[in-house]
């Protein structure tokens, strides 16, 4: 079989992204105020069993890198899956209120001050909030035993707005407790500061299952993009597959919220971009989204650290870049459309 241009493009793209990711990962591991020699020596001594103290490489930089990679991959893949399921390039985990639900329960954990006593309360709240929201949206949009995609989107937007309003009401009620407001603001802005193995444990099981689930159903996702009727005719159990994929998205989003906080636009723009580069087949789209998501998130974090930029958090800078990228893509699509080209 002769490989086509698209295959070559994918091949080079994967190699380039792999190289960038490797460089970013290495720099993330090396960069720090404590000198690399000292870090490495202590790490080596720990492997030999002669040093049991805290080590920046083993106890902070490696877990932080894992959290960054998991978050980037989770957000990009969940966005890709949502866009495919809704046949809508504007879809993201936010559209069903999944992120809002997760964020609301995490907010409650912070207000009740449980996060210090019970570290697992945050991932549990993030995942439970995401899942409960999903269940609520699904139940409310069910009519005569069926779920119409348009009803699902509208219900999702309504629930999302409601949850956002509840969150705003809580913040308003707590406005005098500025110390708590400051904690919540910092969390909502997203951060990769001081991520350790605890955060990895919060996120990794959710991410592994979520990513595996999305990959497992990649053929069904491809068929679902043809439309529900066609998918049913081709033997896909639409409702069941869709529900399971939503669960996977809830796992991925919940894990990312638990470990890093709220990261806007990432799940919206990256899959859109990757789909433009290599086409809509989820067989290639999902792995590439994992790679692009991890690489771009690692790059952003590294840039913030290397240039010591404190004015932005990883969440705010992602939102700014994501928003700008989205605007550029939209303008470009409009121009192409006006010229009479078919936009992929």
């Amino acid at each position: 079989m002769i490989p086509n241009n698209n295959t070559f493009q994918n091949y080079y793209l994967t190699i380039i992204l792999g190289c960038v990711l490797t460089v970013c990962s290495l720099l993330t591991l090396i960069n720090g105020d404590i000198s690399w020699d000292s870090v490495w020596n202590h790490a080596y001594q720990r492997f030999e069993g002669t040093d049991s103290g805290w080590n920046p490489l083993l106890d902070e930089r490696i877990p932080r890198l894992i959290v960054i990679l998991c978050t980037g991959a989770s957000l990009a893949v969940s966005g890709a899956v949502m866009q495919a399921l809704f046949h809508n390039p504007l879809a993201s985990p936010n559209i069903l209120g999944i992120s809002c639900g997760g964020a609301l329960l995490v907010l409650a954990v912070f207000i009740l001050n449980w996060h210090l006593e019970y570290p697992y309360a945050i991932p549990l709240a993030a995942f439970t909030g995401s899942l409960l929201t999903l269940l609520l949206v699904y139940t409310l949009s069910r009519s005569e035993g069926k779920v119409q995609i348009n009803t699902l989107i509208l219900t999702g937007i309504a629930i999302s707005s409601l949850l956002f309003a509840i969150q705003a009401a809580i913040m308003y009620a707590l406005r005098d407790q500025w110390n708590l407001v400051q904690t919540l603001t910092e969390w909502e802005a997203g951060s990769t500061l001081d991520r350790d193995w605890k955060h990895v444990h919060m996120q990794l099981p959710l991410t592994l299952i979520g990513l595996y689930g999305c990959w497992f159903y990649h053929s069904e996702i491809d068929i679902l993009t043809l439309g529900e009727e066609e998918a049913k005719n081709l033997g896909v159990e639409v409702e069941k597959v869709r529900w399971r994929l939503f669960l996977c998205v809830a796992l991925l989003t919940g894990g990312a919220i638990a470990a890093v906080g709220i990261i806007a636009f990432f799940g919206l723009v990256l899959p859109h971009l990757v789909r433009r580069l290599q086409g809509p087949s989820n067989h290639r789209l999902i792995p590439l989204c994992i790679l692009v998501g991890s690489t771009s998130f690692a790059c952003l974090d590294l840039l913030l650290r290397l240039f010591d930029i404190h004015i932005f958090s990883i969440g705010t800078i992602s939102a700014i870049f994501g928003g700008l990228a989205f605007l550029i893509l939209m303008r470009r699509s409009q121009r192409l459309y006006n010229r009479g080209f078919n936009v992929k």
Partner: protein
Amino acid sequence: MPMHKFSKTTKLYLPIVLFIVGWWVIAFKATPSLVEPVASLPTKKNPISTPADNKLSKLEKTTLKQALAGDVALMTQLIVEWDIDAQFLQSVPVTGTQRLSQAAFLRSQEIGRFLASSKKTTPSGSYLPQTYAAASYLFALVSPDEIVAIPEFIRNETELYPKELTDQVPLNIDRYNSEKLFLRKPQIAFVAHYSDPMVVQALSNQGILLHTMRSPLTIDDLTSELIAIGEIVNHPMEAELLRIFIDAAFIALDNRLLLMASNFLRYSESLPRILVINHHQSFHIPTLKTLTGQLLSRIPDWDISLDYVKKKAKEQEWTVPIDKENLLNLDPDHLIIIGRKGNDLEKKIINDPCLREIKAVKNRQFYFLDETIQHSPSQYIVLAYYDIIHTLLWSR
């Protein structure tokens, strides 16, 4: 059939749930603390004095707080005591000892005597402090009967504003209270540049005079606003005395720190290095733009927080985030954490594998300070300085 479906669903979901829950149970199972819990805060009643320094007057936080709340007799008495302390320290000699200028000292005593001898007038004013600082100053300068309403959160800060005091103020400043406030006929409202423009306009429409307060960015801003409010509410002498008292209190605390430093240097080659950090979701070092940073600039021989800010060239920011790796790299002898008080944070620090490697944590030289006082943009900033110095004394 439904039973079959249930069993099929269980077979699929149960392993997934068990995988996640199992992972979390193993990862988050309670690990015993490797470090014994530290006695959290030094006892507040412990005065700043040392066995070798018995000749100095007692300086207790409660006394200081009472004076800052507007006790004229106590203010004049303490100013005299601190001046005597300074003279004693100069005679030792303790290098760098400061005294209040003669003019300020005499003026404080003159005001004290005048206010003690003058007849008490019946409260006649009616003021509406919309900001924290204005309310704090008004509590010190005028009778609570003259205050129409206060921001609601001040009622929760009972350590600075006792319930008996705030209960005398009938209303809270609330967006639904404008008519009730109008009925109380406040003469002057103290607003800030960040006040809601609609509220400010409404107050103006009601014929209430407005005084826009300056942003409390520096300690000088705080004291000059104090003088301005004193003149507006017709208590200029009380305001002037309070300003002199604030200056005197800072000097008295500086002098005690100098004595403490000379005592330290008798037994060790250098002073302990202290690092002050804020804690919310993560750790931040206050810069010189904050009041805490300005307090730290008074103790450059001890403090390493501002050095870190300078090294990072982040003087233009309000706070600089610091991760655990950098905290360990700085390895301070004393760690002061400003945040929400509570044992949970203490546990977090003690049980954190990185933080417990820091010298200050290993040697139990870490302290929590309540941010209500540390970030108070009012005369109580003196108590914030007292608390920082108090932790150093406790470390001895």
